[in-house]
């Protein structure tokens, strides 16, 4: 069923446990209102795609969720904590449970693949031994099929490989929620499909929930359990891919042409 924003969406089914609840989140830059009373829920094990035009505020939304941007108003409840109210120390704790895959991959140029993957561990798993860290790094790289690149520099990797390494780095802390910022942008359709299938497979393997920002319909079809339409800064509609695809609403239809 397609849910319009005016209607309060029931918080999932009885067996659904919300891991993230956004309520009336607003953010503006100067006179530009990017998010306007945006609300939605993410349930455990669910993959929600946020679909919207370029510049519609999708990236701002997930940066608000991870605490990189502070919303002007509203609450962002992640795993029981309201993100805008947390101090840096509390934010760090939450960030260990929330992975973020950047659109540009954001791999550290000055480091090797191994060092890139070890970086999140140095803070969150400070008490681990070298052997344990090595095992985790190898496991994360094996999950994305790139164990052989462990000692390569990131500049030697192709676009698809960089995306996979970034995904491995995101997953190394075994997060409960993963935020993907346009994971297939800039990739060819075949590699994009591989990445989308990998995301699906890893979500199943580690039972993670995810918010995926995308406008790549192939990726959306593969990974989405449900889709949130971000239009005019609001949660314009929410529903399954097939439901939205057959919607009569003109604004929704534009995305599926």
């Amino acid at each position, binding site marked *: 069923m397609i849910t319009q924003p005016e209607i309060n969406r029931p918080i999932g089914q009885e067996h659904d446990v919300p891991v993230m609840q956004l309520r009336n989140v607003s953010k503006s830059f100067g006179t530009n209102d990017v998010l306007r009373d945006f609300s939605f829920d993410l349930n455990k094990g669910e993959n929600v795609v946020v679909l919207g035009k370029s510049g519609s505020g999708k990236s701002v939304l997930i940066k608000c969720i991870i605490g990189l941007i502070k919303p002007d108003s509203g609450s962002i409840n992640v795993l029981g904590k309201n993100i805008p109210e947390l101090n840096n120390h509390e934010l*760090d704790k939450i960030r260990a449970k929330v992975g973020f895959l950047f659109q540009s991959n954001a791999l550290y140029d000055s480091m090797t693949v191994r060092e890139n993957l070890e970086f999140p561990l140095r803070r969150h798993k400070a008490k681990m031994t070298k052997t344990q860290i090595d095992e985790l790094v190898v496991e994360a790289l094996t999950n994305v099929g790139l164990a052989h690149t462990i000692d390569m520099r990131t500049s030697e990797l192709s676009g698809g490989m960089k995306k996979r390494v970034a995904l491995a780095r995101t997953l190394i802390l075994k997060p409960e929620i993963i935020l993907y910022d346009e994971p297939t942008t800039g990739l060819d359709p075949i590699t994009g499909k591989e990445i989308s299938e990998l995301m699906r497979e890893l979500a199943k393997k580690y039972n993670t929930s995810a918010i995926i920002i995308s406008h790549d319909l192939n990726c959306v079809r593969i990974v989405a359990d449900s889709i949130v339409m971000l239009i005019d800064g609001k949660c314009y509609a929410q529903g399954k891919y097939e439901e939205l695809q057959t919607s009569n609403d003109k604004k929704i239809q534009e995305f599926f042409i």
Partner: protein
Amino acid sequence: MKQGVLMRFLNETGDITRFAGRFFKEAFKPRYEIGEFLRQCFFIGYKSLPLVAITAFIMGLVITIQSRPTLVEFGAEAWLPKMVSVSLVREIAPVITALICAGKIGSGIGAELGSMKVTEQIDAMEVSGTNPFKYLVATRIMTATLTIPILVVLADAVSLYGGYLGANIRGVVSWDLYWNQVFDTLAFSDVIPSILKTFFFGFAIGTIGCYKGYNSNKGTEGVGRSANSAVVISSLLVFILDLLAVQIIDLLNLT
């Protein structure tokens, strides 16, 4: 609304001051990024050694050769080591080294942090639970502040050796005589203030490079602009700080 030039200058000065204040607030609190600090010492300090040494050697040599004819005219050729050592140690070696470092280190830090900023690497660091200001900025400012004085001491020594060779191109000054004259002339009041001011040079170079890189925007164009303005502003600051240092030294009668 478009800001005037004066307003932008004041805003920028305020932002840089706040940025420097944040360094003092964060750099001395645990957790200390010792590994990154040592890595930066290698890149900022050790990797700048050859450039600083070659420049200092040439400056020592050239200053001696250029000064000689004037001293010969007054029959004061024997004073050559004295004059050269004072000008090299008090002014030329510190300022030239700081300018070389402003170019090499300032632009390097500005471009590195700028490209990290526009490719979201700084955000990625924050998301992975590492304070990027502490990890990237505090370590680089600290390294620049501590390594530039060491480079200046080296530059002093190498430039004085250049001066010795310069003195022997036309004239004859023995190794022992040259160094005896140099050390007879130089007092602690020459050496200490000139080294102390280089801590400020280093701090200014590190702070400006980091500020420009950390606040870089507008994609790759912004990175180039950050690197460029880091060099321009830190070079200018070196001269301003030098001017202030000379006034203070003069006031304290250390001349």
